[in-house]
């Protein structure tokens, strides 16, 4: 079974600096650049947390750029 699909598993809700969320199986080390926003908890609770707190799917750097046009140019490297 895919580790993201275990109905009985323990999970985290992770968030990165773009404000993007990721479900994450608790038995796997948390990847660099991600913080625990919720958990460990059951899967549904983590997903509920994500649905509640993630409200804008645009990456944060894009939101910043749209709000402050002098800001850096996201996606251009």
């Amino acid at each position: 079974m895919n580790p993201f699909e275990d109905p009985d598993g323990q999970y985290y809700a992770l968030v990165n600096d773009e404000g993007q969320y990721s479900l994450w199986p608790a038995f796997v080390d948390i990847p660099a650049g991600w913080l625990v926003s919720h958990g460990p908890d059951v899967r549904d609770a983590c997903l509920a947390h994500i649905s509640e707190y993630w409200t804008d799917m645009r990456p944060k750097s894009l939101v910043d750029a749209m709000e402050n046009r002098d800001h850096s140019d996201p996606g251009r490297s």
Partner: protein
Amino acid sequence: MIPLSHAQRRLWFLSQVEGPSGTWNMPFAHRLRGPLDQDALYAAVDDVQRRHEVLRTVVVGDDEPHQMIVAEERATVPWDVRSVSPEDVLNVLGEEYRRPFDLATEFPIRASLFRLGPDDHVLLVMTHHIACDGWSMVPLAADLATAYDARLKRLAPAWDPLPVQYADYALWQRELLGDAYDEKSILARQSRFWQQELAGVPEAVSLPFDRPRPSESSRQTAFLEIDIGADVHRQLNTLIRDTGASLFMLLHSGLVALVSLLGGDTDICVGAPVAGRTDEDLDGLIGFFVNTLVLRTDVSGHPSFYQLVDQVRQKTISAYDHQDIPFEYLVEILSPQRSLAHAPLFQIMLILQNEPATDMELAHLDVEPVRVAASAGNSAFDLSFSLWERRGEDRPLGLYGFIEYSTDLFDRTSVEYLAERWVRLLDIASRTPSLPITRIDVRTVAECADPVVSSEARRRPAATLPELFQQRVHSSAGAPAVVTGASTTTYGELEDRANRLAHLLISRGVGPEDVVGIAIPRSVDLIVAVLATAKAGAAFLPLDVVYPVARIRFMLGDARPAILLQTQVTAEIVDVATPPRLTIDAPDIVAELTRRSAEAPRDTDRHSPLLPLHAAYLTYTSGSTGAPKAVVTPHAGLAPLVSSQRARLDVSTDSRILQFFSPSFDGSVWELCMALLVGGAVVLAEPEELVPGPLLGRVATAMRITHVTLPPLALSAIPVDVGLPPGTTVMLVGEAAPPHVISQWSGHQRVINVYGPTECTMIATISDPITAGADDTPPLGDPVAGTQLLVLGRGLQPVPPGVVGELYITGSGVGRGYASQFALTAQRFVACPYGPPGSRMYRTGDLVRRTAQGHLEFVGRADQQVKIRGYRVETGEVEAVLADNPAVAQVAVVPQIDSMGTNRLIAYVVVEDGAENEPNLRDFARERLPDYMLPAGVVFLDSLPTTPNGKLDRAALPGPTFQTDHSGALPATPRERILAELFAELLGLPEVGVRDNFFELGGHSMLALRLINRVRATLGTELTLSALFQAPTVADLVRRMSTDDRDTTLDVVVPLREGGAATPLFCFHPAGGLSWSYAGLLRHLDAAHPIYGVQARGLARDEPMPSTITEMAADYVDQLRRLQPTGPYCLLGWSFGAVVAHAVATQLQEEGEDIALLALLDGYPGWAPAASGADDTPQRLLADLLQLFGWEAAELDTDDLTPATAVEILRRRDGLTAAIDEERILAITRIMSRSGALLREFTPRTFRGDVVVFAASKGQPADVPSPEAWGDYVHGHLAVHYLDCTHEQMTSSASLATVAQVLAPRLKGSGGCER
């Protein structure tokens, strides 16, 4: 009578089943260097046999075998003594190893002495397992040494007599274990334990085999040395102290973890031997005591090595507590799925050898053990691991041993990798026993050195779609951008139009992060709308106007576009109140566009600057929860993709790219980018030209296409002789291409596999041109620029090559997510542990495997997603839609492979209690789902079958029966019958009713083309695709095809097929007068031959009927001559018709005509079968009539039959509507009755020529004449063919197929004729 022990009995039984073989031989071989006293050796071996009764025991009895012990003085060991060259000795040993024992007449021991040179010998003592086991080698060696020593001194060995013999053990075991029927016996108690412990064990273990398991194991094995270093040994010893587990348990835990990681199973059985010498009195005994324990481990979840060891420890202890039951007995009582392909209950054996060393010391000789098995292994197991501990002064020095592996399944290299991974796993697990085993990376050191993430080093600056397009406009404004059959639009013109529309959109408030719906079919307008939307900064959402309105409304409600672009035509189709709509070809808009600026919008014109992370477009894909979901794709992934298109697909400014995919599918974006962002031309064709088939190939050639992207099925629908322009780059997408398609096309075209989920900017991998041989699975390819691929196991650890893992994609192509579906996005677009900090990877759900050559191979899906005609479909979405029907209580939608090897969906439905009728789910679904998501079949069940843990038991679902029309009309007229058979053949169904819709039964446009071809070949009728769309049932098609024809079905001559130029075949009616039953011949005979049925007078109207068969034949001769004035004639008749055909043939001959073919189907002179009026009461005749239509006599209540009820029966089931009414039924019964009478009075004349007779071989009544009865009336060769059918079944499809097969060459030889 002394019984066999349980183990012996089972082994005896197995060897009986197997026949003579060396399977159970146990060699004991030693090289003896030095002065050998041969006589002392012979005597010593005899001494050992005398000491151990079991070695002088034969097995007698057939049903219940028992031991017969031969007295000491009459027993002697047979010897084979000869000289053998040292090079040959291993071969000779191998031969000897394979030589069977006959247990009933031979002792289970024999000896060989091979003389290699002076003072150099090999001694082989061969025993049968029934009398020996591994531990027996210790007393064997000791006793042989003692006896040889004594015999050297010419003494008898002075050993203590054995306390017990094997026969005592066998009796004692029977006593101890007790009776299986006694609940309290050990046998019964331990049986219960094992029955519970091993309930539902998997049939066979999964591992990355090099070859599929053959249906019968060859039992061939080979050996590989294995070594576990001192470090790991020491770490394991530390763990022994920490856990209280034994070394065996740790090795076993590691093995189970490895098998799970490599094969994906979580329920794993491993076998382990136990000595079985539970009493020390048995220690000095030779005999079969060893037993095998089955150790079953649950590796599900993510247990740590500690937890696994703990489980294994408990399992092993309880197995030891129940070790008295012989394994062979266990197999009998559990009777798992028996198979010749693999060993029962477990296929992996683990042996940690703890038996004392079997070093033998013989006086004055240097003795060295010789391993016989190594040259030719023989085992039923997939893998056997045998290990010995190496110890010095109680310090662990490592373990050594060998893996015996089945060469059916494994190559040596794979077993080497397996061994290396096991050692690596034991190393990691013993150092970090708290780590979940699913997290262990078992890749070898070399494999870890390969980058997990392979990517193209150079990163391109991100760009937006308008920027990329702009570059092309600047460099080639005059070059063709869009080509249709009628016109060409240049880059400059396209830019001009798109800019004006973009400014109009901006003026309506549209900007970045807005969505613009586009309901415009493939056209220049569509491309203008797409570009204009991007230029305004918004994301485009193409909507396919052929989708159900409900689905379009859902998408509009879900994506909430700011504006909907449409044309005057589509405005009528997509009639919605919101969002505001803009009809781009409406006069006022056209006028407004001319006033707008033709300059490209700049960031200063847009409502906010357009950035690469802004959404470029939305694509709806099937969603498992019942509603489609919108994938949001930013601009950022486009530039790398386009660079890969250019670099790896040879796309250039000269390229002409066919726009094949529907605009709502992101394949169309792939095509547009390939052309317009590189500088080539998009080629637009008419929708009907894009239907896969010959036309598509011709259009592609006429339009000089250089690049085309197609699902494999669409490519395979183009006839190879029609082809595509030579050198075309054909990109296959959507599903794995069958090897034959690739081999057919790769000769003249560049065939390339492309793969990618919508979530990752269309395409993630592109293969090199494929030239694969016929058996290879095409590789997925290498990642496109900026994209990396990860193959991860269930602990998100990278898996080694050859092992199936799930594909994850990371890099710039990964999309933003599913619009407004935050929780869903967080489940699929997940944190990436192998990329830059904070990066995400997309979880594809595709199971893949990296081959040893480094290619990525698609293996299957991890979830319920299926591809239908290349479209992604979540069965959950179809289920959710069907479940919305109030009459549906439960539903499961399951993909099934049809006769063409393609997927189709079958819905299994449980209806709500109290629902009156089975709901018409197809109509219900059609209003809500696009056609590729419609179930091809609906099966109604009382309940859905479930597995013990409550999941849907897919294996228990019945095969699909299709929801046919409720009137159940089956084909009746010849044309209906032939069409229905073609429908059924192509759809892979047993039968099809006349009112069943071809497309609803799973037909799709590609199958439709095959149908058209088959109709042409069979009926000689040209059917068009549009005709089939408008008349998709058999009944509709027949009506359509016969609009120009008068109804001929009851005429004396009914044309079953007209139009061909070759000799016609005339088929004469049976007793009932109708000739429709010959329609089944059409499919199997060349369409060049017209086929006519000749029917009785009096069917269509009251008219004079012939009073003799001679008169009837004369009438038919006149009819024939109207259609074919001169011979040679081809004639055929069944039953009564056979006699008529013969009569017609004799008359034609008498008139001087040639007969090229006379075929008689189970009809004989003077013989009237039951169904031709032998007993001509009206009821009997009606019953016979119904039998002619395929009814079984037993189904009919003969006494109550009237013409009216007969018509009713025929109408109800057989769908006879127009042609047959009560009056016709009466006419048919009259004709039948008359036929019988005519037949009895008729004597045939003599036919001069060859005759083919087809005789029924089943269910023939006693009075039926033999086919040779025709010999009296034929001067010529009588060729008789027996068909495996009854008289009534002579005109079934299967029978007529055989008849046609025989007749086809004769018919062909009949030549043409003047008409």
